[in-house]
């Protein structure tokens, strides 16, 4: 039994859209500094779960606690200021602005917490380096490839320096090389931050994962180590046709 309270905890979290129950009584806990992978077939409710954690959706029922703060139903900017950052499934960037401006907007908000403008610039340069886009710093984001836009978004999340980072399918649309680099970045972030990563790509999961939570029809079906989850027959069943073969 750990005596340290979890970083994030949900109790009975439920989201209904009319008759559709997208999340059904989800009880979830994440430790400080933990890296968790979330998998599950299409429509399992993973993105809906993230939207409730970040205030984009107000849960129909249930509680969410981040550190000591109850955050269910808070507005996105309030939750962001507490230190939760998200890369959404559908790329969410400032398409009309340059890469540098995108990152700066995130860094400026983070630097405001300790009232330093010099720090914002340092963060921007550091993040550009980490997402390997310094040569495209002045490019307009809307004109970049899908994979590069994904990285810009990951860059904005990093620059905001959140305590907890949520990544919804970060490797989607990336080349193999870019995917490997993304896995590297995730492991690097995890040295001093907690993350939850949603992915379908099992090879990718194997590169980064420790503990895996499986969503199915809005519920948590199973929660265990990577190997145990990939070996489970029920998981194979719900992923029928997907490449689960471990």
């Amino acid at each position, binding site marked *: 039994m750990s005596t340290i309270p979890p970083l994030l905890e949900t109790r009975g979290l439920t989201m209904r859209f009319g008759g559709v129950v997208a999340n059904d009584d989800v009880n979830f806990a994440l430790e400080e500094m933990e890296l968790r992978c979330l998998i599950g077939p299409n429509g399992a409710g993973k993105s809906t779960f993230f939207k409730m954690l970040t205030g984009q959706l107000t849960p129909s029922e249930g509680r969410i606690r981040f550190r000591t703060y109850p955050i269910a139903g808070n507005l996105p*900017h309030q939750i962001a*200021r507490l230190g939760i950052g*998200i890369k959404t499934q559908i790329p969410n*960037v400032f398409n009309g602005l340059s890469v540098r401006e995108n990152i700066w907007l995130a860094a*400026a908000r983070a630097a405001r917490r300790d009232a330093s403008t010099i720090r914002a610039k340092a963060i921007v340069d550091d993040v550009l380096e980490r997402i390997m886009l310094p040569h495209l710093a002045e490019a307009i984001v809307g004109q970049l490839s899908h994979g590069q836009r994904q990285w810009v978004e990951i860059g904005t999340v990093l620059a905001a320096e959140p305590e907890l980072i949520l990544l919804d399918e970060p490797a989607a649309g990336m080349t193999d090389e870019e995917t490997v680099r993304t896995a590297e970045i995730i492991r690097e972030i995890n040295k001093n931050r907690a993350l939850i990563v949603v992915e379908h790509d099992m090879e990718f999961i194997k590169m980064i994962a420790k503990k895996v939570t499986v969503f199915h029809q809005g519920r948590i079906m199973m929660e265990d180590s990577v190997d145990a989850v990939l070996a489970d027959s029920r998981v194979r069943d719900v992923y029928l046709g997907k490449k689960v073969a471990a």
Partner: protein
Amino acid sequence: MSASVKLSLQVVAILVACVAVAVMPVAVDLFQLMQFTLFASMAVLALSLGFIWGFGGILCFGQTAFFGLGAYAYAVAAINFGDSTPAILLAIIVPALFALALGYFVFYGRISDVYLGVITLTVTLILFNVFNSMAGDAYKIGTARLGGFNGMPAVPTFNMPFDPSSVLFPEQSWYVTGGALIAIYIGLRLILRSPFGRVAIAVRENETRASLLGYDPRAIKLGVFVLGGAIAGFGGALYVNWGAFVGPTIFSLSLSAEIIIWICIGGLGTLIGPIVGCFIIEYLISQIGSQQSFNSNLVLGAILIVFVLLLPKGLVPTIRLLLEGAGRLATKGRGQAPNAAPDLSAGQPVGAE
């Protein structure tokens, strides 16, 4: 276009505009100078909507509400105080507070963009009806009669700060109005370079992303909206200074629509565009009005259709694209762009006068 080229073009434009304002009284006759004074006060109104729509993403169909409130606030205060100095301040503060109240209701009430247009339009109609019906002795603020549909005639025009005895001459009024237009343009440029302006543009680009980074889109939009209201109100004071009169038709829908046409023609998402559009359209309307051979609304409609079909981005962005193309050609060729570019760019502000 690179940031430094853009900046130097803006500086050139400002310098040309300053020179134009300075020499105008000797270049044209008094009647024309008065007309340009009117256009410049309207251009302040154009700038206010160009800012909140083009950079804040807020399409307000009733920007005349703030223009009109500013005009009435100025008139009432100028009549009561006999000095235009506090009246000008009130013409800024009253519409700004009104924008604050209205904007709070709209943005914090999570009312969608479509309804924002409807609500601002409705508010303008209500204001028109309210001011239109306040005729008679009962409707007085201090010594100022609001005059209902007759409006308020003989409003004191601008005087030297805190010196009601020295009323401005038409030339001086032109300097004040043209100078104010340039000052507001520069002020907005500076705001757009400040952190607040950059975040406002980010909210326009992607509200969800901005909020997920910790910015409150409601507060940002409210700030932009209030600033737009304050500028429009100031434009209202300049307008009354021009005509010494204000009536309820200042809240008319046709003026509200005209502002949107100025911006569409000049170019949304630029600050020069709305000014250029305003001067061109208002000049055309005044020319048509004096000829009597065409209906000005018909011509206005035709111009708008031509622009929407042929130059949907508007004049200024189109010229900017042409410049970029010319610049690229020139750098490929023998590098004659340095001559060509400033010539063309100088055409923008000259057209604006």
